[in-house]
């Protein structure tokens, strides 16, 4: 039924969910959090031992496919569900499902991914037609119906590319002093809107929305931030996700999967590390080191190392929404890096812009070498003649980007899923969790007992979820009370603001019993779970 090395279409995902629910009714459930533009369901899956208690446990949230083409994320989310359900005797899985709840949203851009997986088209998020303020341009189209949208090259005296003399598949940029030779223009395979017979226009996408610029934190309108939509959370997909997260206040950690690059990204998107709470920064770096050890991906601040222009960083992202608004520690892993496979170093956006023509050529040569050695050259379609309705004879060719650059070829999928899932387990294990121990019961008189308890946090993060969350104050407040057939003398309920990682505190109650000698002690927190322990005062006393 479920296979790891596969990209799933929408109906196939629905089948998987139904199947899992049938086979694991005690710890798997799913429901819809909203509908997409085209009316498809966006599902969230709930995994924990004892589903009836899922709101009383700290929850780890995973989503994938904010971006239509980034289907590796979807596969990783499904892999995680499968792994958790089928390895319940594993110590780590067992601990996770006992202590925490998992909310896994396997695909957000359900419409876009469907188009991506069943046609030659590529798009950013939604299939809603949206490209305001953009002039007419070149629209991608599979002109020769081979099922792929590649590149077109044609000879031109003012072309700014030439064929590499090291590998004829590679197009290299023309040097400033290149006057002799054969030059080409290279553009995306497609049709030019309002073509005047001469000028090739820039790419324009009909589907210009970017879900990951549509969240409220730092949101900027279209003229500053491309793809941001008409207002924050204007899209049903993003609004459904935001509503879900806001409603489920027990979410204490999050991962939002993307491709590509082979980097574990962390907040902030729009601000420098200097502006982050020092202890939270320390935590992100510690987790990042664990992540690098597990995945070989470095952990980078988006602002510091994954931004094209620090003066205009990407606004309205999901990760800044969860961390900055809600104080949830969140990562966004860019899965898969073909460059690393080809033996190339990781580079930041800035470094990529600064690459010389020679360096770019070298990189392409190495990538093709990898392609030839491991994939029989199939990831690159060699240039072939084709007839273009507007341009006449052209040559079509280039990387089949969907399952080379943007996502791994299927046979490499499982490894990517597994190691990244392991990182989310490490992140989840650091989430806070309250627990309770009886330290002492003293019988003061026939009916009066003094109960000394220790309330502690079993997890590494503080019970509010982060230091930022502590400041926001919305996720503070641990309430401890006793209930039963008793009268509580003195303090009836204790409130603790927040417990640091592994911290413990002593709480005492004095109660007068009637007939029943047992009481229920309840510890209630927003993000570190709810604990209820029954204490028999007669049996426990010393």
């Amino acid at each position, binding site marked *: 039924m479920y296979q790891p090395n596969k990209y799933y279409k929408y109906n196939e995902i629905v089948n998987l969910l139904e199947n899992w629910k049938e086979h694991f009714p005690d710890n798997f459930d799913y429901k819809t959090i909203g509908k997409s533009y085209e009316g498809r369901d966006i599902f969230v899956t709930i995994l924990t031992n004892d589903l009836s208690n899922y709101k009383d446990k700290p929850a780890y949230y995973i989503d994938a496919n904010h971006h239509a083409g980034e289907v590796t994320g979807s596969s990783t989310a499904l892999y995680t569900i499968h792994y958790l359900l089928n390895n319940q005797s594993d110590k780590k899985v067992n601990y996770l499902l006992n202590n925490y709840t998992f909310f896994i949203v396997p695909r957000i851009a359900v419409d876009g991914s469907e188009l991506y997986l069943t046609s030659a088209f590529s798009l950013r998020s939604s299939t809603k037609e949206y490209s305001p303020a953009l002039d007419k341009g070149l629209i991608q189209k599979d002109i020769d119906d081979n099922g792929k949208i590649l590149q077109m090259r044609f000879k031109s005296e003012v072309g700014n590319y030439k064929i590499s003399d090291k590998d004829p598949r590679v197009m290299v940029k023309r040097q400033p002093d290149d006057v002799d030779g054969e030059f080409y223009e290279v553009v995306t395979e497609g049709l030019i809107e309002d073509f005047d017979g001469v000028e090739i226009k820039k790419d324009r996408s009909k589907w210009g929305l970017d879900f990951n610029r549509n969240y409220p934190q730092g949101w900027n309108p279209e003229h500053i931030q491309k793809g941001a939509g008409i207002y924050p959370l204007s899209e049903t997909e993003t609004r459904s996700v935001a509503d879900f997260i806001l409603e489920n206040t027990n979410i204490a950690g999050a991962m939002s999967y993307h491709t590509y690059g082979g980097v574990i990204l962390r907040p902030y998107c729009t601000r420098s590390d200097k502006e982050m709470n020092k202890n939270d920064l320390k935590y992100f770096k510690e987790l990042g080191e664990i992540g690098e050890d597990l995945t070989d991906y470095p952990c980078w601040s988006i602002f510091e190392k994954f931004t094209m222009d620090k003066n205009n960083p990407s606004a309205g992202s999901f990760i800044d929404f969860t961390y900055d608004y809600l104080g949830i520690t969140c990562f966004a892993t860019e899965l898969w890096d073909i460059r690393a496979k080809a033996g190339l170093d990781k580079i930041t956006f800035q470094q990529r812009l600064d690459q010389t023509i020679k360096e770019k050529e070298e990189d392409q040569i190495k990538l093709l070498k990898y392609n030839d050695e491991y994939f029989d050259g199939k990831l690159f379609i060699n240039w072939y003649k084709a007839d273009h309705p507007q341009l006449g004879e052209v040559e079509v060719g280039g990387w089949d980007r969907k399952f080379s650059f943007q996502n791994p070829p299927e046979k490499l999928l499982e490894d990517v899923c597994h190691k990244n899932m392991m990182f989310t387990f490490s992140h989840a294990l650091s989430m806070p969790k309250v627990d309770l121990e009886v330290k002492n019961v003293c019988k003061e008189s026939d009916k009066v007992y003094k109960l000394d308890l220790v309330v502690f946090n079993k997890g*590494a993060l503080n019970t509010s979820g982060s230091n930022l969350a502590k400041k926001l104050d919305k996720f503070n407040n641990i309430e401890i009370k006793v209930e039963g057939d008793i009268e509580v003398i003195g303090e009836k309920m204790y409130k603790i603001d927040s417990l640091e990682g592994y911290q*413990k505190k*002593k709480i005492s109650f004095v109660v007068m019993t009637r007939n029943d000698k047992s009481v229920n002690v309840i510890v209630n927190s927003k993000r570190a779970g709810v604990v209820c322990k029954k204490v028999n005062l007669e049996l426990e006393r010393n």
Partner: protein
Amino acid sequence: MNFNPSKYYKYDELVEQMNQWNKDYPELTKLYSIGKSYEERDMWLIELTNKNTGKSEDKPGYYIDGNFHAGEVTGCATAMYTVNHLLENYGKDKEVTFILDNFVVYVLPRVSVDGAEMYLTTAMTLRSSTRPYPFTEKQPGLHIKDMDGDGYITQMRIKDPNGKWKVSEKDPRLMLSRQPDDFEGEFYNVYDEGEIIDFDGVEIKAAQRLYGLDINRNSPVNWKPEHEQKGAGPYPFSEPETRNVANFILAHKNIAGLMSYHTTSGVHLRPSAQKPDKEMNKTDVKMFKEIGERGKEFTGYPHVNTFEGFVSSPQTGIFMDWAYENEGILSWSTELWDLLQRAGIKIENFKDRYTKKTFKTEEEDGLKVLKWNDEELDGNAFIKWRKFDHPQLGEVEIGGYKMKFFRQNPPEKLLEQECKKNMQFTLVHMKALPKLEISNIEIENVGDNVKKISAVVNNIGYQPTSGTEVAQKLKKYSTVKVELETNNCEVISKEKELDLGHLDGWSKKKVQWVVKVDDNSEAKIVACSDRAGKTENELSL
């Protein structure tokens, strides 16, 4: 009694040794107390110079102290080593003879006389003064104490499923930080060995220390109060120790160079502890760097701007910063003893020494230090974890490093080499002090009993005659004044005393007078400035 370079001296022994030096070298030394400590101990200072070449106040001065911090006894040892070296080698070694003939060296081996005594004679460890501060009584929480009576304050570890530590699988002595995703295994909490005041049976937190003063945050430069700078004291120079040192320095305007020893790290610190080089005086920074580079050849230690290369946040009230910014003295603070580097740990920037590296590096570094301990000291610096019945906590295990003569100071057998190479750093600096000399004296007959006197006044030292460029802006330290002192001689040219301003390092200026003489005329040129000394030449008219 012979000076022992491999020994840490207690107070009485220190005083005895200083008296011995004074007795053995009466022509080279002067010994006096600059004031009393909190517990009323005298702070003894020994002044070194060849008395036969002039008075100490007429010579450029170099000041050395050690042990501002109670536990940093290597500083005292290095100061003592320096005194001994200078006295023993005067007249035998060219460099030493040059220094004591031309300069005066003021050495205050121990500033925190009370604190160091507690450090050396009990298991206790503390920052500086034994004056209880900010509270006069022990506050609630964990106070360090030698619980098991073995003479050392180490650590206690207690098994706890909510513990933040775990034992290394590679060496059972080594405790490692629990990782955020460590959910199973044996965990421990680790505390300083001690007892808890007002223990509620559950929570263990380190208490505000009783001896909470840090007298190296007590000087007036950028001074900040307790809530912003721990240990700063109620007001600048509130403590007798710091006030005595300050009064001494202010009364000795000839001091142009300074070294205040600390431990630990193996780095030569220089101003500022507050701001980066680009906000400091460029000329002075260049001087610091050049002296540092040369001195580094002896010690192997890097030299850094303290803010940029040592502290993780700006530090206020630092004595070295006060001596430089307020008094314009070219000041250093060497952090002696480089255990980590000797164990093979590479240090990129000392700023990061307290931030945790990757979990892999934490274990690697921990193992390296243990290995060094095993190879160099037969493992003796580490007390293996063993069970102990703690009166409050029940069964715990006590163990850990004997920090005092391992981490904070070198073991005695390695003390001498540490002192020697760092002394050599200060000798480099001493030779760089400004110094006036008169040369090229020419006397010309220009008429009836009228003579023209020309000479060149030189600063033969590397530092300017003000000591630093900052000192020139402070205008507290006198410029170079050249006077023609005469007897039976009339000075016809405009001034008898010429003011040359300050002379740069390695520079000179011409001076001239015209005088009317007779048979009994006598004259001499006297050049002096606060910090470049006084020099004179008799003229034969």
